[in-house]
C-alpha cells in the first residue's frame, strides 16, 4: 500500500501515522465538544445545537434498537460513532491519513465493543446466567455443541467488525490511489503546463475530466461509504448490546406460552 499511496503531509518522527491521526481525530472531537459546551444554554445555538441534533439522532437509534434501557450506553455508542465517522472523513482530506484505514485502529474499536458488551451482559444478568444463555433453547444433548458454536460466533464478531471497517476504508483508498495512478493526473497536468499547444489542449481537457470525475463521483461515493460504515459499526454494536441485555427476557418469553 505504501507503494501507491502518498505519505501524509504531517508526521511525527518515531510515531506511526495512524496514531498521529488518531490524536488529530481526538483533538478535533475534544475541541468541538469544548466549544459546544462552553456556554450551555437552554435554547441552544450554533455548535451546541448541532451536537444536540447529532446526539438526539444517536439516542433515537438506541431507543429503536435497544429500547429505553439502552440509554446509559449513549456515551459509548456515540463516542464510537463520532470517532469512526471523523476518522473515515479525515482519510478523504488530501494530505491527511484516515486512522480507520489501519487495522490496529479498527481492531481497537472492535475489541472495545467486544469486551463492553460482554461486561454489560454479565453486569445485567450475572456471570452464570449470562453463560447459560450461550447454550440456547436446544435439547440437553445438543447444549455442549451449541456452546462451542456460540463461543466461535462471538469470537468472530470483533473479527468481522474489524475487517469490515478496515476493508471498506482501505479498499476505497486503494481505488482512489489506483485511479489517480492509472489515469495519470500528474502527467496530464504536467503536460498541460508544459507549454506545447497540443499538450495544453489534451492535458487540460484530460485533467479537467479527471478532476470532475473524482470530485463529482468518487468523493460523494466515499463520503457515503464513510457515513454508512460508521452507521453500520454503531448499529451492530447496539445489536450486540441488546442481545447481551435482552437474552434473559427473550428466553423467559419463549417459555411462557409453552406453560399455558
Amino acid at each position, binding site marked *: *500500500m505504501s*507503494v501507491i499511496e502518498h505519505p501524509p503531509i504531517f508526521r511525527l518522527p518515531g510515531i506511526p501515522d495512524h496514531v498521529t491521526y488518531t490524536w488529530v481525530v481526538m483533538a478535533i472531537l475534544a475541541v468541538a465538544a469544548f466549544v459546544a459546551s462552553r456556554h450551555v444554554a437552554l435554547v441552544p445555538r450554533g455548535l451546541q445545537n448541532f451536537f444536540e441534533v447529532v446526539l438526539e439522532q444517536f439516542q433515537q437509534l438506541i431507543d*429503536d434498537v435497544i429500547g429505553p434501557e439502552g440509554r446509559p450506553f449513549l456515551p459509548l455508542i456515540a463516542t464510537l460513532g463520532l470517532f469512526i465517522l471523523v476518522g473515515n472523513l479525515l482519510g478523504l482530506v488530501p494530505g491527511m491519513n484516515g486512522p480507520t484505514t489501519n487495522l490496529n485502529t479498527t481492531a481497537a474499536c472492535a475489541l472495545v465493543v467486544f469486551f463492553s458488551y460482554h461486561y454489560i451482559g454479565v453486569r445485567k444478568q450475572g456471570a452464570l446466567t449470562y453463560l447459560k444463555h450461550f447454550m440456547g433453547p436446544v435439547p440437553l444433548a445438543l447444549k455442549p455443541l451449541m456452546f462451542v458454536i456460540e463461543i466461535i460466533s462471538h469470537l468472530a464478531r470483533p473479527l*468481522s467488525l474489524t*475487517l*469490515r471497517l*478496515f*476493508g*471498506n476504508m*482501505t*479498499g476505497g483508498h*486503494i481505488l482512489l490511489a489506483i485511479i489517480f495512478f492509472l489515469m495519470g493526473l500528474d502527467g496530464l497536468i504536467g503536460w498541460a503546463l508544459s507549454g506545447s499547444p497540443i499538450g495544453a489542449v489534451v492535458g487540460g481537457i484530460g485533467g479537467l475530466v479527471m478532476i470532475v470525475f473524482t470530485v463529482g463521483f468518487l468523493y460523494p461515493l466515499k463520503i457515503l461509504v464513510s457515513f*454508512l460504515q460508521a*452507521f*453500520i459499526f454503531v*448499529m*451492530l454494536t447496539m*445489536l450486540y448490546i441488546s442481545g447481551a441485555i435482552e437474552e434473559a427476557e427473550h428466553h423467559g418469553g419463549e417459555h411462557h406460552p409453552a406453560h399455558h
Partner: protein
Amino acid sequence: MRRSFILAGLAVLAVPGVALAQAPAASSGGWIGPFAVLVAGFAMAFAAGLCALGQGKAVASAVDAMARQPGAAARIQTAMIIGLALIESLAIYVLVVAMILLFVQPIK
C-alpha cells in the same frame, strides 16, 4: 470448444510461471509472487460477482417489501442496510486476503 477455452485459460494461468522459469533471476520472490497477483485478481472478481448476486437478491426483496408496506419503509431499510453490510463483509474478507497476497506477501 469448451476444452480449448479451458486449455487457453490454463495456458494464461501458467504464463508467469513459465516466464519466470526461463528467467529465474528476474524476480527475487520466485514464482509465487506473479501467481499471487493473478489469484488476487480472480479472487476479487469471483467475490465481487457473487456478492453482487447476493446483495441484488436482498435489495430486490427489500424493495418489494417496501412497495407493499410503505409505512414500514424505514425499518425495512435499516434491516436491509445491516444485511447488506453482513453480505458485503464476506467480499471484504476476500479483499483483505487479496491485499495480504499483494502487499504483505507472507509466502515468498
